[in-house]
């Protein structure tokens, strides 16, 4: 077992980027902007990444790189990562790792499992190919069943992985598979594109500098389709997402930044404005275009102004703090 070294004692980064509206509380510790230092009550994200048998050297290298990229990108937001690579990734090791997660996780936590490699489907069972006996989708479902965390994400980037959707289905669990069903048996490209997305600016649709599982999935889904179209090949995989993947952060494109005490009020305002924009977007149908865009502009102008103040603070904190104190005094 390779314990991804830097996860223990991770400081829960608090970002300037206050949680966007679609990121639910607790899905990632970092979304709790004001929760500064780590505390036992702070929600955590625990992630297990497993790379299975490659069969051929080229696949083995690719799967290992995918696992490494997943672990590396998830590590930054303060997620606890366990990485099992080909030789160590036996059925027992996977089970033990999940048992460990079961013991540690609380309801408010999030659990993410990502599997990279080859999968098979015999018409009844999906199997993830590892050294020794292969774990089935039913095994994974059984091992995950006692996990207390309400938010669970399982990503299976293997051939035939669509067959795992049904066994893994559970309320509160999001399941992403490389294929629509078990009959898509060819080696899958999805995992490569998924891990590409984890630090790709182009995948960051909402520009919050973080990559949600939803964003990574959409990026990879499109890339897979584009590949087959460009190569004029028959499409042998159709990625599938069941659940709310927007609840999980799986990568980022910029390092997180701590919110300094002097600008907490600005960070709070950013969050309020972001939420107000989401609320306005939800009401769009009942507004005229003119009214909608006028209100949107007002909110965005204020957001832009606050954003500038935050940037200015990064450049010259003392000056901004002084200005803030003057504001408070007034």
């Amino acid at each position, binding site marked *: 077992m390779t314990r991804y070294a830097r996860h223990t004692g991770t400081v829960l980064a608090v970002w300037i*980027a206050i949680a*966007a509206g679609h990121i639910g509380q607790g899905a990632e510790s970092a979304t709790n902007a004001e929760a500064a230092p780590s505390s036992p009550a702070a929600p955590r994200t625990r992630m297990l990444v497993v790379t299975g048998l490659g069969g051929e050297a080229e696949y083995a290298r690719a799967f290992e790189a995918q696992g490494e990229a997943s672990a590396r990108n998830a590590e930054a937001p303060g997620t606890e990562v366990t990485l099992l690579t080909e030789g160590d990734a036996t059925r027992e090791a996977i089970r033990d790792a999940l048992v460990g997660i079961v013991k540690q996780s609380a309801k408010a936590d999030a659990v993410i499992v990502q599997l990279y490699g080859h999968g098979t489907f015999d018409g009844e069972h999906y199997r993830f190919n590892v050294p020794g006996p292969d774990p089935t989708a039913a095994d994974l479902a059984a091992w995950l069943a006692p996990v207390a965390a309400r938010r669970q994400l399982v990503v299976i980037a293997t051939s035939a992985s669509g067959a795992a959707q049904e066994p893994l289905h559970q309320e509160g669990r999001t399941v992403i598979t490389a294929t629509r069903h078990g009959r898509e048996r060819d080696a899958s490209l999805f995992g490569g594109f998924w891990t590409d997305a984890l630090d790709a*600016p*182009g*995948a*960051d*649709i*909402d*520009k*919050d*500098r973080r990559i949600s599982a939803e964003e990574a999935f*959409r*990026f990879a889904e*499109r890339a897979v389709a584009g590949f087959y179209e*460009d190569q004029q090949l028959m499409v042998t995989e159709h990625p599938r997402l069941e659940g709310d993947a927007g609840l999980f952060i799986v990568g980022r494109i910029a390092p997180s930044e701590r919110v300094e005490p002097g600008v907490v009020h600005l960070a709070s305002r*950013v969050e309020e*404005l*972001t939420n107000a*924009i989401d609320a306005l*977007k939800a009401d769009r149908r009942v507004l005229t275009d003119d009214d909608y*865009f006028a209100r*949107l*502009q007002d909110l*965005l*102008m204020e*957001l*832009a*102004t606050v*954003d*500038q103040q935050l*940037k200015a603070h990064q450049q010259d904190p003392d000056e901004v703090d002084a200005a803030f104190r003057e504001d408070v005094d007034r």
Partner: protein
Amino acid sequence: MRTVSVLLAMAVAMVAHADPLGECRQLEISDREAARTCYLDLLSNPSAAIRAEAAWALGNVQVANRAFRTAVEAAPGDAAVKVRWGELFLSTYQVADAEALFGEALAIDPDNVAARLGLARVALGRFEARAKKIVEDVLAANPDNLRAKLLAARLALEVGDDEAAAKMLEAPLESDDIRLRLEAMALGAAIDHLRGSAPSPWEAEALDIHPGYGELFETVAHFYIITRRYREAITALERAVEVHPTLWTAHATLGINLLRVNRFDEARRALTRAHDGDPYNVEVVNTLRLLDSLDGWDALVGDDVILRMHPDESGALSGYVRRLVVDAVATVGERYGYVPDYPVVVELYPRHQDFAVRTSGLPGIGVLGVAFGDVVLMDSPAARSIEEGFDWASALWHEVAHVITLGATNNLVSRWFSEGVSVFEEWQTGPSRFHADEAAQGAARYRAMPIGVVEAHREAEMLPVAVLDEGFIRPKYPGQVMVSYNQAGLLCEFIAHAYGQAALSRVLDAYRDGRDTVGALESALGVAPEAVDEAFAAYLDERFAGIDPAAFEAAMEEAANLASKDDWVAVARSARRAAENYPNAVGPNSPYPVLADAAERQGHRHAAVAALMRYWHAGGRSPTTLDRLAGWLDDAGRHEDALAVRRSLALVAPLAIENRMRLGDGLLAAGEPRDALQEYLAAKSLDPHDAADAHYRLARAYHRLDETADARRHILLALEIAPRFEDALSLLLEINE
């Protein structure tokens, strides 16, 4: 043509089954209703072969097919019945089945002339060179065979040899067999039309014999079509269906040719009539389906250009297409003294199958695009990419050059010369034109030709200019069409080199005046075609001097082996040797990217850039390579060069969003916000994954253009998607300052 073939075959049948069918056949000419009654009576004839003929004559091909099967089962050794069954398949467009039955007939009777001529007709329909050989063999063994003479006349006329064709028709025109005589008259009429002598006296004479003989006009139309004179073909086909309203093949051909001159509504009506009468014509079915799908296309009508494009592509391509067409018309038009005063119609097909349906029926059409007079049809870059060798922008330039040469000569230009000018203009003035290295010597001064062309010259496989059209219409070896295209381009290059650019215009003028190739070259250049061939060969000797394909291949292979060992000094040496043995090669096996890679790995960025600049100047257009070059140029601060390379890149791969975005960025940085805006709009139309970023870039361009309302709209759209988008927030403040 098919109907005439059927008539020919019917004549065969008259010999084989003369007694029961003869009367009905005779009545077909004089009294159609009586002929119908006659055939109906024959449906109860005890002979299955006769029942088959009767059902076929009455238009019930399924009954005819079943009856032929019965006849063959009853007499499996009867070659004549198999030939007739094959003829039935041929008439219903099932050419492979027909070919098999003719083969079976020949297995029974190797000397069966009807079967051999059946195979010749199959080859004729496919524009295969073996058609001529089969007919020549039949005539060698049977010098008086009239049906063979008719096919020989047709073949001669297809390559423009009207004198040979007329000679072949002499005997059939004297035949006692009315049907053979009628077909000979049809071909005689075609000769007259091609010679510019219309109407032909044969028309009245044939209609006197057979007032419903629309096949004559169908034959005339066929020869107009293969010489690209679609308007004349339409007139002939209208006459064909006027005298023979149930001649469904003529309705079909009329519909397809109306499409070629952009008369869509009339085309649909003609095709619908053809389909109502003959539902087995796959060409008609496909074209009608295509027309249905075209209903949802964007039609962008301008004074100079009318574009018909798929809505998914028009936003990304229409700007480039319009600009290319306008530039090509102006540039090529000026060089040849003819600028059309009508708009050029361009249709781009994202699915190659649709393009094929739209263009079917033209011999030796090649695969890149086609110009029907002022209507240009092409695969769009979505159908095939630059990696597959399809430089769509250059191909469009090529087709527009056809519009010029066809228009300048009223479609009288020969195939080889029209292709030659188009190819030559791609090389000289097109968007992927060749830029010579001033310091280069020998073959390095010229654009590289495919190795096959060099070899065709060295092995004396190039055709004499007087018969070069045959290389397009009925190629005799694989790759001859490609060789012929390049030979034609090289001939024009040679003429411009030896006689001046104006000589090419004089050749065009001569064609316009009705001269054939021999006459055109003699009048424009003052020399016989044989002298042109001789001087051209000498020109190619010099142009190809030093090119050593074997040494090139060996050096490239060596470079690949050395690269696998990371010996980059030796790789560079091998790649340089490859470039010396085959200068300016920019195909998939080009030495320049290899050379660049080797230089880069040795830390010689300057040399790497130089290698790729040569690649680009020589016409190399691999997107990966150009992207690398542009990046290096930007790194070196050569932004102007980088921008020029990015323009090439976006042009060859215009549906790649990233290419359009980066070009837009380069243009914006270079102070060209209007052009940048067009690139960003194109990118946005391609539905980019990162929509917020696309709106942001549009907002930047509009802001630079002081078009504040649009700038504000797009920045709000960007931020609506991504409220935390810092650059966009900053721009919002800037816009609202």
